[in-house]
């Protein structure tokens, strides 16, 4: 390592430039700090390598977080010079108008249904794919396809499929003698329809993760179980499911977090209607910010969403131990 340090320092010196060592004490102090920290040229290289990313994150993520905290406490239309502090009135106003409670309820219903539905079906599909001897890659690719298709495009298609008269869904239902509802315009059926599209879209992600988890389980576990005379169901129930429990939980948490943030498909399918029965928080925020120019209210909704995501993340940390995954150097 000695040569390495030498080389690095030589590189630095030969590269010239840099601040001069003459001048006032502060500059000298800075320079010696720089030199001390710039062994091997690390500090200057780090500035070049991390600087741009941190600048963009700072301007478009970190500063907006602070800014958003301020916005949530003022009343502002985005243009007028007057931005009176209203403290928590933005939250209170949205709560009292009934919009916020409705949106929270709708978002939670959507989220829990899609997370549980897509994890349960995803597990079943993954168990089946894991057991077939041929065509695994093909099945995985097909089931994952909806997850990569553009949400706008497939939502447009689903809107046509759910058309009350000539949509494919109701035509199929009529074949078996059921008169299907006007899915997206019904206060009863709009949310289930949106949930159905959500499950269709997110199922494949869970399938892929479950399959990866199943592949990590050593096969002799099954053989041992088979030798013991356990039936297939018993093997699944008493061996596979406990082994898959951590993945299941992780997928549920991820599904819940993603569900809280749903926007595109509801925007296309129902725009929150009818009568707010599909008015998720993302739509509520969008409407207040960019239709009503109620920036304070929109920021308040953003913080409610943060609260929901943060509480789930805390649950995740509780379960996995804080900092066990990801956080920490």
């Amino acid at each position: 390592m000695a040569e390495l340090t030498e080389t690095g320092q030589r590189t630095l010196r030969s590269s010239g430039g840099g601040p001069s060592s003459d001048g006032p004490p502060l500059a000298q102090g800075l320079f010696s700090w720089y030199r001390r920290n710039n062994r091997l040229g690390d500090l200057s290289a780090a500035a070049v390598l991390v600087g741009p990313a941190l600048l963009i994150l700072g301007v478009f993520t970190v500063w907006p977080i602070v800014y958003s905290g301020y916005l949530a406490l003022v009343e502002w239309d985005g243009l007028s010079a007057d931005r009176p502090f209203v403290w928590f009135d933005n939250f209170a106003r949205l709560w009292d108008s009934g919009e916020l409670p409705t949106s929270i309820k709708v978002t939670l219903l959507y989220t829990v249904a899609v997370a549980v539905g897509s994890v349960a079906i995803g597990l079943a599909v993954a168990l089946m794919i894991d057991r077939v001897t041929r065509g695994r890659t093909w099945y995985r690719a097909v089931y994952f396809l909806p997850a990569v298709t553009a949400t706008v495009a497939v939502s447009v298609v689903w809107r046509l499929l759910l058309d009350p008269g000539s949509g494919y869904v109701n035509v199929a239902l009529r074949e078996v003698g059921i008169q299907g509802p006007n899915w997206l315009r019904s206060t009863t059926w709009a949310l289930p329809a949106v949930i159905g599209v959500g499950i269709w879209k997110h199922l494949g992600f869970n399938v892929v993760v479950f399959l990866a988890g199943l592949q990590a389980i050593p096969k002799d576990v099954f053989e041992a179980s088979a030798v013991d005379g356990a039936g297939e169901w018993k093997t699944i129930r008493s061996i596979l499911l406990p082994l898959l429990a951590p993945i299941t939980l992780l997928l549920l948490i991820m599904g819940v977090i993603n569900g809280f943030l749903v926007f595109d498909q509801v925007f296309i399918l129902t725009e929150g209607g009818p009568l707010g029965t599909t008015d998720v928080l993302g739509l509520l925020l969008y409407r207040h910010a960019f239709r009503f120019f109620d920036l304070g209210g929109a920021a308040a909704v953003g913080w409610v969403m943060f609260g929901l995501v943060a509480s789930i993340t805390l649950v995740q940390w509780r379960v996995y131990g804080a900092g066990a995954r990801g956080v920490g150097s």
Partner: protein
Amino acid sequence: MRVAYRQPTLHLLLLVGAFLILLPLLWMLTTSLKSPGDVHIPPYLIPVTFDWSNYSRAFAADDFPRFYVNSAVMTGGIVAGQVLLSSAAGYAFARLRFPGRGLLFGLVLATMMMPVYVTLVPSYLIVRTLGWLDSYTGLIVPRLVSPFGIFLMRQYYLSLSSDFEEAAMIDGASRLRVWWSVALPMSVPALATIGIFAFLFSWNDLLWPLIITTDPDLRTVQLGLAMFSGRYGTQWTLLAAGSLVATLPAIIAYLVGQRWLVRGIALGAGR
């Protein structure tokens, strides 16, 4: 083996499921090739007529070629930026020693937990202040950095041996040079993962283009399709053609990059 006789049943169930999964996509393809008069005559799911004019009519009804260019520029910029900046920052966090490294990396990770909605309105205001509304800059620059990508690349570089880099430094290469000529080429597989995620994210995104642009000339494909479906809601063949065109690049990217995508999901369930 007791599993053997179950195979037909499993395949039957899986095929029914696969059919349901593919149904909307098949319907989209078939409808886009029907003549407008036949559209409500079900239930062909496999194209039997091939009326390609829907595509030209959809393209003529709205400026889809223009939307395509906009989406391509935006996606290209974001993919290139996220790949390069993730590698650069990930490398620095993994290999370089500088004051505040742990703190800054913690900050990067912390931003991963922040839902975009918290920063949506302020980001819009900042873009407006910078004069970037209705511009490629406004569509691209705020989304050039992926904290998840930085995290992934840092882990990747930590898992690589630094022998090659040390050899290069002994030969007199600077740290930057080592990153560019040694570390970057060695991390192509991980960068492919970040690239495919960035591609799918930006090609499919609706919300940011929706709020940042009002000029029809700057609409992306997804935004253009959303607006298009509002105006031509009854013209099913055109809508199907437009939807197919809007999602085709994502499907192709998926088929090409499936390996890296699946790996990325396994690594961190890609956010």
